[in-house]
């Protein structure tokens, strides 16, 4: 079984500063890390590999230094890695990103399962996974906390939603975006670290994945960031404390005083 894990290098949120004039992230000089949710995606893939055997490929689109992120996951036990990197990919929104990733997955060929993190901590859109599945025309499940490979090659997943847990069965190939509940990312091993150091990481550009320039990068993007700003602080928030029954009572009084219709 071939598994692909999509990962992304993001600025380390602990050290990110906001430019006071432009209100955008200052990325220069900020250390990069792997998007934390993507490490859970890697872990989910490796656990399936441990149990059932699989070939796990890590895929990222990014600048040349994103190779670092790929070597990190290789040192945790991923089998091989591909870096999608081309000037033409720059400035991509989620759709243009998914377009490039989809082309790379097609080029890899015969992929049964794709794992993504639930969202990236820099953009926070949670769109790339579903878009990638849509472009590949395969089923997907988001916000997954548990993954099992059942009989007849069907995937059983448990989704955590605001309404509760959902258990789904998906035919393969499929795409899954995962939550941290899938299990703590493993640390590297010495043997994998040594392999990762020497591993060849192929770099695929626009021509390698057979896309035209107008479909990727800024040109292939449907959305553009016009302005970034901090939302105004939400005023007048109060925390209710004490036993739940007391809190309910306080809330009821409060709503009544606020003259909420029907109370």
């Amino acid at each position: 079984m071939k598994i692909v894990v999509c990962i992304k290098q993001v600025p380390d949120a602990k050290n990110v500063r906001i430019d006071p004039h432009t209100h955008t992230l200052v990325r220069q000089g900020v250390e990069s890390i792997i998007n934390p949710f993507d490490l859970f995606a890697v872990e989910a893939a490796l656990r399936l590999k441990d149990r059932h055997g699989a070939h796990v490929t890590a895929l990222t689109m990014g600048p040349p230094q994103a190779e670092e992120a790929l070597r990190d996951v290789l040192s945790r036990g991923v089998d091989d890695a591909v870096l999608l990197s081309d000037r033409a990919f720059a400035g991509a929104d989620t759709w243009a990103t998914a377009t490039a990733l989809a082309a790379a997955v097609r080029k890899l060929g015969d992929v049964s399962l794709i794992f993504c993190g639930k969202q990236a901590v820099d953009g926070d859109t949670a769109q790339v996974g579903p878009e990638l599945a849509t472009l590949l025309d395969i089923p997907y499940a988001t916000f997954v906390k548990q993954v099992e490979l059942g009989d007849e090659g069907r995937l059983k997943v448990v989704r955590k939603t605001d309404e509760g847990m959902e258990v789904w069965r998906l035919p393969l190939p499929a795409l899954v975006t995962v939550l941290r509940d899938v299990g703590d990312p493993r640390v590297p091993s010495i043997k994998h670290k040594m392999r990762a150091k020497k591993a060849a990481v192929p770099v695929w550009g626009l021509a390698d994945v057979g896309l035209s320039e107008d479909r990727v990068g800024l040109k292939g993007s449907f959305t553009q960031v016009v302005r970034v700003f901090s939302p105004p602080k939400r005023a007048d928030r109060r925390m209710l404390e004490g036993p739940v029954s007391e809190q309910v009572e306080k809330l009821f009084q409060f709503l009544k005083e606020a003259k909420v219709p029907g109370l």
Partner: protein
Amino acid sequence: MNYFLTDEQKMIQELAEQIAREKIRPVRAQLDEAEEFPTEILKVLAQSDLFGVCIPEEYGGLGGGILENCLAVEQLARACIGVATSYAASGLGAYPILLYGSEAQKAAYLPDIAAGKRLAAFAVTESGAGSDVTAIRTTAVKDGDSYVLNGTKQWITNGGEADIYSVLAVTDKTKGPRGASFFIVEKGDPGFTFGKKEKKLGIRASATRELVFQDCRIPKERLIAREGMGFIIAMKTFDKSRPGIGALGVGLAQGALDIAVEYARKRIQFGKPIITFQAIQHKLADMAIKTEAARALIYAAARHLDTDPPDAGKVAAMCKVFASDTAMEVTTEAVQVLGGYGYMRDYPVEKMFRDAKILQIYEGTNEIQRNIIGQELNKEYGRMKETFF
């Protein structure tokens, strides 16, 4: 300081540091408080290949030597020597097999130890035989195709948790120091049980138990090397393992120094950070000097010992004494730098101070190490033709 480590050595160091930072540091206080064996952390260490650091590649290890072992141990110890002791004791238990085991014994045990699937332990001490190893009373009597063991081992690290035990027992009382032998005993062997877990001052994440042998029958193939080799195997094992105790000391001292300096920079008294007071600066300076000196000794000695030199016993003892005394001194001063806060369980130096003491006691007390060094000096100078005054 640059110790000119190879890429592979740096990799071992970095990985052990990562595990210490991510997996050990966050839980060390809780493991200590609950006296809880670090099963989950040992699983992480297993998966990271670190249990195989000094086991040859043909048995699934990384083929490193004493230096590689010290590098791993030091980094783990920087976070918690209770956890690091559990890790290191498995290596200690493996050494008799590694150094003197038959091909079949190595093939049967080393791959599992290297993979961290089975934990090992080393059992010499008894209630009446601490420093005086020759006073052991556990016996192993040959009976057909078996040996039958009787006796009780005391204070065995990883006791009850380990699957593989290297056990020293008397095979011929009449032969004195040539009358003891090492055996491999497995958890589950008939007649082999464990006593209660000891309650300790420090290294409370490590498990220390009695091993009880009551007509414990094992196949005769479990004898390591030949009958009578027991004390030689014990000594050769210590030559390999004692630098590792030194590395525990270096790591612990570094861990205490890290906290003391950080704290001294933040703690304000008389309107200034206490690190601006010369009395505190000098303390920190002495702590840093001793820690670095201990590290330099351990690394240099480990490289030397990896060449199997004739003075191995003396050099290994020097590592153990110097670095463990350093750890005791540095952790004591770390508590002093933190003042009352250092005495409280809320800060990690309280635990480090309690933990440090064991390093001066186990694997041969520091008095015994000084005996070894002193006796060796006497012999060395006795052999010399040159006079110095």
